[in-house]
């Protein structure tokens, strides 16, 4: 067994021998148990009021089957479903891959990398609405900065990005990636920093360098965290309203609408809130498995990165 394998084995053994909690009351008895209940009650009440009740109310609002008949009869609905899948599938995976690569870059210890990291975080720290509205104007075909730069540098007039479904959708996805990439980069950077340096040192002793260390240490150690982050971001992206609403506005001709914006449009533009809830609820078949996978993953990866 190489030094690296030995080091990895120690980590696994530690995780494997973690004792399981077996008692339902956490070992509390009598007065201690009553006190514990008394202190937990406010939190339970808040959970019921602000988590369980809204969910149940949403289910109640969207429970009429006639709503779904109306929904499926709307030609925009199918487009919104396809766009949502593309938005989540491409937006999340491209972003997480970039975040993974960038987290490696930001592991460098030079001062300028750290300075760059501060600048890199800015999009995430910027409030979402002005940021997305700026991108909407940035992409404006006539007066936007992008086409003006193209004209100044190359003398060409760029396309009218938001008049085209695929460019508009790409704009929304790009904006979402730009806005949230720094956050996930920082999370993965923290994950990389938690990988024990002994593993890399042991690998170096074994003669592994560069790509091999990345493939045999970084990737396996980060895999669990990467997957959890991806699942979590998929849940966020499914409900994301801001990027689509403020960048393309769902246009042209509703062709870049996603379920979150379609739901809001039903609820507040047409004043049919139940139909709006039904539109969002129709994402549950995708959302629930994601949450279950996430929970299972979190339980399985206890004690690991």
């Amino acid at each position: 067994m190489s030094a690296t394998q030995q080091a990895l084995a120690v980590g696994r053994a530690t995780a494997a021998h973690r004792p399981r909690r077996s008692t339902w009351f956490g070992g509390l008895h009598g007065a201690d148990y009553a006190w514990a209940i008394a202190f937990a009650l406010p939190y339970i009440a808040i959970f019921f009021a602000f988590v369980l009740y809204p969910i149940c109310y949403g289910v109640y609002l969207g429970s009429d089957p006639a709503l779904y008949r109306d929904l499926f009869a709307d030609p925009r609905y199918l487009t919104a479903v396809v766009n949502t899948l593309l938005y989540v599938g491409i937006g999340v995976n491209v972003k997480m891959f970039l975040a993974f690569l960038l987290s490696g870059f930001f592991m460098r210890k030079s001062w300028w990398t750290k300075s760059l990291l501060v600048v890199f975080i800015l999009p995430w720290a910027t409030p979402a609405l002005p940021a997305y509205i700026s991108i909407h104007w940035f992409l404006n075909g006539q007066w936007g900065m992008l086409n003006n730069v193209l004209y100044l540098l190359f003398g060409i007039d760029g396309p009218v990005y938001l008049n085209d479904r695929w460019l508009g959708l790409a704009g929304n996805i790009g904006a979402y990636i730009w806005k949230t990439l720094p956050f996930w980069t920082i999370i993965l950077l923290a994950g990389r920093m938690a990988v024990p340096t002994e593993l890399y040192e042991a690998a170096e002793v074994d003669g592994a360098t560069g790509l091999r260390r990345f493939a045999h240490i970084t990737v396996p150690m980060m895999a669990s965290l990467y997957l959890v982050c991806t699942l979590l971001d998929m849940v966020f992206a499914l409900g994301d309203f801001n990027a689509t609403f403020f960048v393309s506005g769902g246009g042209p001709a509703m062709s870049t609408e996603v379920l979150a914006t379609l739901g809001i449009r039903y609820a507040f533009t047409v004043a049919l809130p139940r139909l709006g809830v039904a539109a969002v609820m129709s994402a549950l078949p995708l959302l629930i498995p994601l949450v279950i996978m996430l929970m299972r993953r979190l339980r399985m990866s206890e004690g690991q990165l």
Partner: protein
Amino acid sequence: MIHLSRRSVLRGSVYLAATGTLAKPFIAKAAAKTAVVWMNQGFIPQEDAAFKKVAEDYMKASGNTLDYSIMPFMAQNQKTISALTSGDVPDLVFMDAPSSIIPQNAWDDKIVDVSDVVAPYESQLADSAKLCSTFYNKATKQRSYYLCPVKQGATPFHIWGDLVEKAGLKISEIPKDWNGVWSYLKQAQAPLRAKGMRKLYACGLQITTVGPNDGNNVFTHFLIANGGENIVTSDGKLHTDDPVVREAAIKSVEFMTGLYKEGVVPPEALSWNDADDNNGYHEKLFMMDFDGTLSTELALIKDKQAFYHDMVTLAPINKNDGSPMKTQVGTGGGFIPKGAQNIEVAKDFMKYFMQPEVMNENLKGGLGRWVPAIPSLVKSDPFWLQSDMPCLKPYVEEAVLNPTLPVYEGFTPAWGQANAEQLWGQAHADVIKNGMKPADAIDKAFKRCNEIFARVET
């Protein structure tokens, strides 16, 4: 010293919860003369100040209390729909543009009938204000007043007069017919570009497929100008099977997409939102716009040169057949959601607000962005027709003195749904992007419109 035991803590918690629950009705009773009012924020601060003054004056005069909140329009819209859905409602909602909320909720019997509030003023109200305030209730199977009308707004042309002159044209020579206005002004683009304004467009035509409102509003005015005003009648019926309406719709799409294809409309207009045309106009990225109320002008009120000299406000005059143009007006005011705790005070406040002198002072305070729902006021008060604000007179003439139509949303909630789907913007996109003929694009839009109306009527 008080000894805290487990039992005393638990017992105390139960007492506290019980006291809180039981005390609630008495708190409500103590505030029996207080009404909760939600008001939408005005476009200019003067509108908010004018509303506050009415509220304060009412409180002094009546001894009642108004617990009012002023919030941005979109927030108020969402808050109100959420409240109507959950049943936890305010006593009064005061809104500039309630046409997306009231039709559906009056239809669903979720709003209080306010006929008794409106009755004393009914004979003085403009016809369009009356039509915009009465809605069909599916439960009672009749139309009734669900809005206490106070203000009205119309859609004028906003033109950069200095650019018109720079292009060698004259405002006084703009033709009176609807299409003529557009055709005349589009000529300005070439000379202005020749003078170095490389990216200037002549027409800020809201041909958008995004909405939510402006594109539908512009199309409807084209439809009226081409003789298709009966697409929806006051009984809420759709008349897409009327050949006159169909012909008018086809002509409208033909003309609008024609302007776009000629290159006198910014290409981006297909995906504009409601703010994009305002922003573009203010930046002089195009020369003219057709957009609701005087907010376009009032936004630049601090720029004396622009407000008093460069901008020109123009009311549409004639349809394309030479008969007088009817522009659509929307009506704003107060409505009371069912379930309100203090209907009595809410109604009393609206009775106070609808008094002609109160209404007039309030709208003057808002610098005339909205005009009174009682037309005689603009004739009796020189503020409206002899103001030093150049934008006001043509706007008042259009919204009050010239023939008007109510917005179709007041006739049926189905029209609001058709607009929300951006059917007319989609028809333009079908012609411009998909190469469809205007007749086919309109037939496609009408087919979907028929489906929406059929669903609402059943």
